[in-house]
Each structure stands twice: as C-alpha cells, then as structure tokens.
C-alpha cells in the first residue's frame, strides 16, 4: 500500500500530499504522523495540500484530527497551500477548521512555525 512520505526539517515534520487521498491512506497518515511526532520529538507539523483539488468532509475532518492529535503531543500543526475552491467547499460544508493554523504556502508556513517557537519582533 502506498504511504505518504513524512520528511524531517529541523524541529519540524513536513508532509506533502500529492495524490488524491482515499480514506485508508488518510488514516494511515494519521497513524504514521503521530508515531513520527513522538519518535522525532518534533515541535511542529507542516501539511502541504496545494496539490489537492478535491477535499471532502472526511479529509477535512482528518486534517482537524491530525491537528488535535499533534496538539496532545505538544506539536503545532500548520496546513498550507489550500486552493480557493477547496476553501470555499470546506466552508460550505461547515468545516471551518478553527483549531488548525493555516498559511498560504510552505514558505509562509515555516515562518509561522518558527515564530511560534521563537517569538521575536517582526522585521519586514
């Protein structure tokens, strides 16, 4: 069975979802991610969904679950790269993912994670 690769980037874990996720794949990801967070002691998880054209309520809830699980393991989750159509769909489905932090792309997402752990005055 294919698995979604999880990469380690410093203190953070990076997951890029490039295939259409079916339910079993999503549950496997949840499993793998929680295991890796513990084994690597990661403080943050970055999930890139910029390749996902379709997100249904199951995937939506799965993202929320991963964030909640990571929070219990004291890690911050950031979801990046959501497409406009996907955002509108999730909102219409009533899934607002309030507890999940979001950013426009991986770069901004990493910036967000860094700031979460090294709060310093912003210099733009």
């Amino acid at each position: 069975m294919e698995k979604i690769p999880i990469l380690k980037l410093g203190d953070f874990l990076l997951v890029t979802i490039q295939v259409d996720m079916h339910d079993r794949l999503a549950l496997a990801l949840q499993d793998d991610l929680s295991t890796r967070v513990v084994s690597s002691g990661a403080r943050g998880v970055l999930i890139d969904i910029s390749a996902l054209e379709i997100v249904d309520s199951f995937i939506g809830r799965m993202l929320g679950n991963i964030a909640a699980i990571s929070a219990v393991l004291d890690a911050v989750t950031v979801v990046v790269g959501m497409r406009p159509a996907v955002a509108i769909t999730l909102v219409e489905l009533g899934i607002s993912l309030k507890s999940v932090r979001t950013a426009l792309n991986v770069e901004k997402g990493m910036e967000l994670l860094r700031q979460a752990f090294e709060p310093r005055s912003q210099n733009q």
Partner: protein
Amino acid sequence: MNDAVYSRLAETINKHETDILKEWLDNQRAEGTLSKSLEADVQQQSREFLASLKNSLRQGRADIMAAEWIEVRDLLTNLSRNRMQQGFTPSQTGTFIFSLKQPLFERLRKEFGQDADSLAREVWTATLLLDKLGLFTIEAYQKTREAVISRQQQDMLELSTPVVKLWHGILALPLIGTLDSERTQVVMESLLQQIVDTGSDIAIIDITGVPLVDTLVAQHLLKTVAAARLMGADCIISGIRPQIAQTIVHLGVELGDVITKATLADAFAVALTRRGLAVQAIKP
C-alpha cells in the same frame, strides 16, 4: 369563432383603408402618443399594421397566437420595444391598438348599418380582436421591461466586487450593495484568488456600502472570513456604522475573534501594525 366573419372585417378594412389610416393617426395624435419626430415612424407602423392585419384576417384563423398572425405579432413586439425604450407608458403603447377602434367601427357602421344584427356581430368580432391585440402589445411591453431589469442586475453583480491591494500583503474588499448568497460566492472566489495571486495575508472587508446587515448577511460575511482564514489570511471587517453595530448585537451574531473596526483607516492601521510597519512623517 366563425372564420367567415373575419373576412367581412378584412374587406371593410380593405375598402376604407386610407380613411381608416388617416382617422387612426388623428386619434393617436389627439391622445398625445405622437410627437413631431415620431410622426413619420408611426405613420409607417400604422400603415404596415393595417396591411398585416388585413392579410391575417383574410387567412381566417381566429387565434392571434397562430402562425398566420406572426407578422402582426412581430410588428407589435417591435413597436412595444421601441415605445418602451422611448419612455412611453404601457397605456400609451396599448393606445396604438385601441385608438383604431373608432375609425374601424365608423366604417363598419357604413357597411352594415342597415342590418342591426350584422352590425352587432361585426362590431363584437372587431372589438374582441382588437382587445386581444391590445393586451398582447401591453404584455410585449412588460416583457421588454423585464429583460432590461434582468440585464441590469447581471451588470451590477459583475461591477461591484473589486479587490484592491492596499499595501504589500494587505488587500481591501470594499463591498457595495446587498450581500446575497449569489454575490457572496462571487466575492469569496475573487478574494481568495487575489490572496493567492498577491500572496497577501491580511484582507480588510469594508462594509460601508452594505445598506442592510441581517443574520443572513452576517453569515455570508463570516463564511468569507472563514474561507480566507483557511488560506492563511486574516480578515478585518471595517466600515461598521453605529446602526449596524446595534443590529449585530441585537441579533446576537457571534463574530468570534474576527477583528472589527469602524473605519477602513483604522483597519489599515491594524493591518500595518500586524506586518510590523508604521507610517512616519518624512523629516525635512
């Protein structure tokens, strides 16, 4: 309806066409539905109408919606459209047909005056026909008006949702007009696309131009904010008039942690601070 009855009508018109036309135009002039500039057009239209009417009557079908009457119907539809665009009222437009009654009845009286029964029958036939045509004309007028309104609505929808860049990373969305679900879709799509294109992380939604905020409008606004948030952009809602603020509280709308400001200027200041920027005087 006895088809042969129409043929007598057709012959009457044929015999007295010139006189009927002249009197009819006089009537239209008297009713004030003719102005100097239009006179030539109306003469043409009246002449053509009488000719088409004669034709269709000769073919004998009683139903004015049948194929034999298409020329007459097209003429009347065009006439209504023109009259509507020129600013005439529906009544004035209908008068085109109704003012034909008197000259026609005059000629019918000449032809059938001796025989009371025949006269009554002819007049009744003519009046029924002209009533139907008159109503058709007025309905055509209404349809034209409705088409204009619907086109204008479409235009308004397209015109009124611009997204502007205030500063690097800061977008503004000035909403003008009512916010219904159709408009919200358009607004959401356009805002989210701009967020992607400009890489902005703050969007200021200004509702100074939204006249009415009820629970539905608030819901639409919050949906837009939620969608932008899913894409990593924070929203600030500005342009909240005192009335609107009171309405929001009365309705018990939950704004959650959405920042709200009274003016766009205040919202812009907040956005700048968020990005670690400030406005400074230039030292001379």
